[in-house]
């Protein structure tokens, strides 16, 4: 059969070997095979669903005080009890997730984009751009990160603004470093040289070929970096220079609960656990995505 075909159309010269079925399982079934990705995804999804639907889940207002029923232990009515001002802890915990996760995502958008852009340009073009970017990133890394965060938070006043400013200033560095390294190593590969000799414009090589090749790694870095951002937000809240009360926030909740450690330990422990939970979810997701993209290529 095959021989006959080759005889009748000797000029076609198609490889007799058919494209190997390297595609493997696709989409969902491939994701399902990576436990870290599944676990991280489910954990994060659960939190996001809760945060989105909390107004319908809980009958309580996160800021409504009820001084007649303060510091109650967990019960059927108050699932995680109430705090020192009689506010429902579970409701506040989930509303705090809205605040903190929202700021966390917003604070990473600009650094992620600008960091990758700077890193790509520096890595691909090299030369003086590369020298300047290396110099700036190394200088910023020499500073203790929390020192910068606290200084900016104080300077810009409490609230989410300080966090945004801080991360626009220093958050791009980690992405710039990662994408610079990747771009510099990819540039040495033959297909980049090939694309150049084939006459594709430089911006096209950067955006359509280099960027997709570094994006997976950058997203993995983003996941782990988000954990850092979350911890920074919570730390500032704990120190009293972050999210201002009465807006629910895990950091201020931990700080407020501290005085009642001996009688109502869950006041601090529960928001603390929420931070750990989110951190684990993001880390697992990052690992899982790395695994997924490694298997793909």
């Amino acid at each position, binding site marked *: 059969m095959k021989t006959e075909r080759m005889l009748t159309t000797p000029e076609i010269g*198609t490889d007799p070997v058919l494209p190997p079925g390297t595609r493997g399982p696709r989409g969902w079934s491939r994701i399902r095979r990576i436990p870290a990705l599944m676990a991280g995804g489910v954990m994060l999804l659960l939190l996001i669903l809760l945060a989105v639907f909390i107004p319908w889940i809980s009958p309580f207002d996160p800021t409504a005080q009820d001084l007649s029923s303060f510091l109650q232990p967990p019960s059927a009515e108050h699932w995680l009890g109430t705090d020192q001002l009689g506010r429902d802890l579970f409701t506040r915990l989930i509303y705090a997730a809205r605040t903190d996760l929202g700021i966390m995502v917003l604070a990473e958008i600009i650094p992620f984009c600008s960091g990758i852009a700077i890193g790509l340009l520096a890595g691909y073009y090299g030369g003086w751009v590369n020298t300047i970017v290396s110099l700036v990133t190394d200088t910023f890394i020499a500073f203790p990160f929390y020192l910068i965060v606290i200084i900016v938070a104080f300077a810009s006043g409490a609230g989410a603004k300080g966090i945004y400013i801080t991360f626009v200033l220093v958050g791009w560095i980690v992405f710039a470093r990662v994408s610079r390294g990747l771009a510099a190593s990819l540039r040495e590969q033959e297909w980049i040289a*090939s694309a150049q000799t084939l006459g594709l414009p430089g911006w096209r090589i950067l955006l359509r070929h280099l960027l997709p090749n570094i994006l997976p790694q950058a997203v993995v870095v983003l996941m782990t970096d988000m954990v850092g951002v979350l911890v920074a937000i919570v730390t500032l809240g704990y120190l009293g220079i972050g999210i201002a009360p009465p807006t629910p926030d895990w950091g201020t909740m931990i700080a407020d609960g501290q005085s009642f450690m001996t009688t109502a330990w869950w006041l601090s422990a529960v928001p603390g656990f929420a931070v750990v939970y989110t951190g684990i979810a993001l880390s697992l997701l990052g690992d899982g995505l790395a695994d997924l993209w490694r298997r793909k290529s």
Partner: protein
Amino acid sequence: MSARESMNMHEKDAAAFEKAGKLGKFGMSDKSGKTGTDASEPPILVADDLTLATASGQTLVEGIGFALRRGESIGLVGESGSGKSLTLRAVLGLLPKGVTITRGSVRHSVRSAMVFQDPRGALDPLCPVVKQVAEVVRYRQNKNRREARAEALKLLGLLGLPESLAREDRYPNQLSGGQCQRIVIALALACRPDILLCDEPTTALDVTVQRQIIDLIARLQSELGFAMIFVTHNLAIAAEMCSRLIVMKQGRVVEEGPSVDVLTAPRDPYTRMLIEALLQLPETAGAAGTDPALTGNANRLNGERTDAEAANHPSLSGEDGSGASTSDEPSAVEAAKAPSESAENAARKEDSAISDSETESQFPTLGSNTEGEDPR
């Protein structure tokens, strides 16, 4: 194949004229009518006393000079580190960091495109292949997205890639090495080059696929009429593809001339060594040795030597025969191709001083490692 064709250039021209109509739709046919390497026509590429050196002053290529005319093929042959690939990259203007032209020049006023050694490495791993070809068509031929895709699919059809690519685009890692090399050639052709630069385009492929790619490039050249510089360490392939050979050793040209002359009457001992280094299939060694067309010293030596080796290493014959082919399918192709090929060979043998059966039988064998050659 083109070596043979250049022997009977008139036939080739006739074929080119015939094919010109068929190829009109690719917009590349205009040159194929005048592919004859007419000596009166000015060369389209001239390398003059080209010398390349590193920043530290180490000379890598010294005083290379050659001229390439329209439709002509030149083979650059030599062992690894002889500077042949570097010469090619100088032509393309793609010298590695720290290597510069210190003397002489490469001048050409026409479009050139390169076919790389490692096909997989020359493709963006995360971009589907049809998209990659269409992209080059779009930017080099100033087409819109839709036209570029149609043109790309036409090109891929010309290169014998499966039609299923039109329905479902694929990533490079979903294609075989040979198919990837076809894509790389398609990328090069999308630039409508006047000169195709081939940097060992078959070295990274299985032997049976090598054959197909060689035939493909030869066919495309006769149809599209581009000139070619073919870099390889395999003398047999170079002789088959090119009418003229330049043999390089340690950055210098040791011998230069028409392929036939270089092969049958090598003047330089290094060239002789390269010819001797070609292994033959033990079964055919005797037959080739007694071929009346082969009167050259080198070939007789070659026959004796291989016989001796075959006697010393009985296992060698098996390894050579099966070589890099890992499945049964390619051998079926070889078998299927054999009748038509041998008929062609018989017809051409009259005109060619090189024995086709010789090159043919040598082809599936690999260059020997005897003289420190390191096939990359």
